[in-house]
């Protein structure tokens, strides 16, 4: 595995864990809490923001070796990870129409970044 591939994998992992953190935020939002402040100050939300923080560190580390021009390729992967994880873990319905919309957006992001 080349050095570039290794650091790209780190970046991809960083995008993946921040997608997992989004799932955790949604899982927390689905629960009932005794007060508004507890909606934020609970182990799930705090852990999710801890993961976001770790993700920024990993991205910065990867960016030392991977050119920023790779960003339009790696960052949009969250638009795949989040619906797949939402479907698998949260059992959210992902219709064909939504998949089509996301596919169109992917093409748009690719054209935008060319």
């Amino acid at each position, binding site marked *: 595995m080349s050095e570039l591939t290794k650091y790209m994998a780190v970046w991809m992992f960083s995008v993946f864990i921040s997608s997992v953190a989004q799932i955790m935020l949604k899982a927390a939002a689905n629960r009932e809490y005794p007060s508004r402040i507890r909606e934020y100050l609970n182990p799930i939300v705090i852990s999710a923001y801890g993961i976001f923080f770790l993700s920024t560190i990993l991205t910065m580390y990867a960016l030392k070796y991977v050119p920023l021009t790779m960003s339009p390729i790696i960052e*949009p992967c969250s638009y795949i990870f989040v619906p797949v994880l939402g479907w698998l873990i949260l059992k959210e319905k992902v*219709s064909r129409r939504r998949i089509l919309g996301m596919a169109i*957006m992917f*093409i748009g992001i690719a*054209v935008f970044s060319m």
Partner: protein
Amino acid sequence: MGDTENGQLEGKKKGHLEVPLKWFLILHLSLIVNSFAGTLSKLAGREEFLSPKFLFLYGLVLLDTFAFALVWQQVLKHMSLTFAFTNKPITIIWGLLWGVSIFHETVTPKMMLGSVIILIGIIVGVSGNE
């Protein structure tokens, strides 16, 4: 919670929005707030590191991120994560607008075309989940 369920049913039936309009608008306001973070980061990056202006702008970045986090958690109570995330690429277009209006950045025809395709994707993705 009731209005969300009704909204979701309505969206499924008619092929329209699956969330109440109010929360759809709040989602988009939060995404506009989210798009400011990149602009503020760029403004901070142009200042001397740790200068008062840098610290002020970086403080605004943190404040903006914090404000977004507060609203995002409320938004997620009223819609599926997949629905919210389908709308997120709109921040690319907001970023483009701020880039042009504040930093006078050049917009290429590909960026314009890409933005239009992204918008079409969002409209297709959010208009009903049947």
